[in-house]
């Protein structure tokens, strides 16, 4: 049955993320309803919609912060509906947050090292006997972190506190933290909000390279249509929590319903 579904939807080597019939309500508000989406392995998938259309809610439903009231979420074929976020993380999903979620008071390096958490075994004994156990683990993981630091060109700020960084750099640190987890599925919630054209260009490049070098699949929430048409393979547009169009970006952005939602809707 699984295989049937996969072959029905996939052109490449199988679906990494499948959502079907997702609905999430908050009290009386229906934030998301009837959303189906399939992301193929190695795909960069765009998610657009006016403010309040339910994009973030959908990612919260996938990552377990606000489990869907109706519908199922599958990761690489496995049902993960309603799984707690910290478990979803260990299954290979990483995400960044729309409003940034770096740990203040910590250095860039420590923030990114936390992305390695699921690959490490932090414990009391290991900490006490640092030289016997933890040191090697720390160094090994530091090396992996340094690769990503180099990839995202964060070398010069690695020892700085994240607190005072400009927003563009913060977004990059958060991307680094998500990438070092070596996820199969990377969810980016407006990674380019507040960035200028040049920074957006860099960020797009990083996302494309991350896929090329690491084979990660990406769910990208973005308001900038040029970015979506530029780097996404397929996309989905939401309005008032419902799907209004999906498919190839060049076609979706021309869809009258999408244009209507963005011009006539609550877009800000």
């Amino acid at each position: 049955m699984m295989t049937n579904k996969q072959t029905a939807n996939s052109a490449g080597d199988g679906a990494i993320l499948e959502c079907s019939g997702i609905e999430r309500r908050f009290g009386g508000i229906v934030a998301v309803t009837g959303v189906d989406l399939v992301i193929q392995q190695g795909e960069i998938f765009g998610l657009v919609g006016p403010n309040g259309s339910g994009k973030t809610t959908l990612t919260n439903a996938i990552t377990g912060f606000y489990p869907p009231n109706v519908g199922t979420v599958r990761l690489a074929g496995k049902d993960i509906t309603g799984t707690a976020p910290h478990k979803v993380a260990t299954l290979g999903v990483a995400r960044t947050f729309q409003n940034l979620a770096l740990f203040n008071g910590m250095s860039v390096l420590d923030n990114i090292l936390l992305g390695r958490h699921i690959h490490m075994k932090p414990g009391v004994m290991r900490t006490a006997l640092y030289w016997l156990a933890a040191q090697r683990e720390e160094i090994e993981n530091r090396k992996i972190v340094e690769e990503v630091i180099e990839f995202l060109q964060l070398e010069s700020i690695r020892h700085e506190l994240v607190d005072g960084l400009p927003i563009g750099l913060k977004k990059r640190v958060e991307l680094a933290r998500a990438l070092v987890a070596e996820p199969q599925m990377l969810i980016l919630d407006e990674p380019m909000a507040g960035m200028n054209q040049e920074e957006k260009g860099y960020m797009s490049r990083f996302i494309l390279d991350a896929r090329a070098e690491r084979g990660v699949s990406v769910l990208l929430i973005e308001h900038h249509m040029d970015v979506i048409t530029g780097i996404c393979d397929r996309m989905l547009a939401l309005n008032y929590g419902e799907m209004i169009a999906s498919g190839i970006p060049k076609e979706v952005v021309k869809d009258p319903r999408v244009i209507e939602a963005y011009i006539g809707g609550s877009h800000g």
Partner: protein
Amino acid sequence: MFYRLSGVHHADYISDSRMFKVPADRNLAVFFLIIGVAAPFIIPSLYLNSYMLPWLIWTAAALGLNLVTGWAGQLHLGYAAVMAVGAYSAIHAAKFGVPWEFALIIGGLASSVIGSLFAFAALRVKGLYLALTTLAMQFVMDWVLTHSPAISGGSHASLQSPTLALLGQDITSDAGYYYVAFGWCVLVTIFMLNLKRTGLGRALVAVREKDFAAAILGVNSFYYKILAFATSSFIAGVSGALLVATFFFLAAPEQFSVNVSIQVLAMVIVGGLGSIIGSYFGVALILLVPGLVNGLVAAGSEAIGMQINVETLAHIPNAVYGALIVVILLIEPLGLGKLYGNIREYLMVWPFDQLRK
């Protein structure tokens, strides 16, 4: 001046993850370690055992509380009760004939179990409610101690600690007691320094700072909070046991009353949440200043020939050190540790302080 970062290059990740990255910090630590070892030979035993020793044990205890409050961000108002569990368990075990090494571990583990059981209940609530739950724990423990002679040692509620013996040596000398306290404080400090550079420490801070962000990195907040309580309680338990075995010699419920819980919390806060060196300063301030002020006031009033009645004399130190806490926190809300950090940072670039970012 002495502190310099320029010219210090970490060429590999091991050196970059050293306990002390600035050579001056390392030298200072070694210097104080040597002082600590030599203390019995240079400090009169009266001062050694009535000031140095309690300072070291309370610092170890405060570091334990700092782990849960400073690192993991959980307010804890029942820390003295957790220390009591360790103290009474260890002493009863030692009385029963268990070697002290194991008795201390039993004390630590008993605290750990009780402390995390409470945490288990308490962590269903957050913030102030958690604080209140831990306070309730303190009152329950006070009640248990005063109402169960079997634990607290008969009708006088005082429990004689058997002679301390470690590694086959009876410890009865002043220097011996001091070294036990010193050794324990060094161990706890090393643990805390390691915490600063390992995944466990990072996970705890992550849980404190933003639990939802921690979650999506795979950090199970509940688990790490419990782990923080368990570890901190272990440190509390052993510290409590050592306090009785090397300082009080008699365990009594008042030694671990609610006042004491608040005092340890004050030590940690004045020292600075999450600051190791700060806990040393905080304990020194809270523990030693009242005595010092007392002496000064007594000497001062004598010098000007003024009679101060005993009651006033007893209150002046409290008032002074209360004021001192307020002043310190007004100057630097992050406590003495941060104050020290500022000075150190200043020295690091002195006299080129215009280079500072």
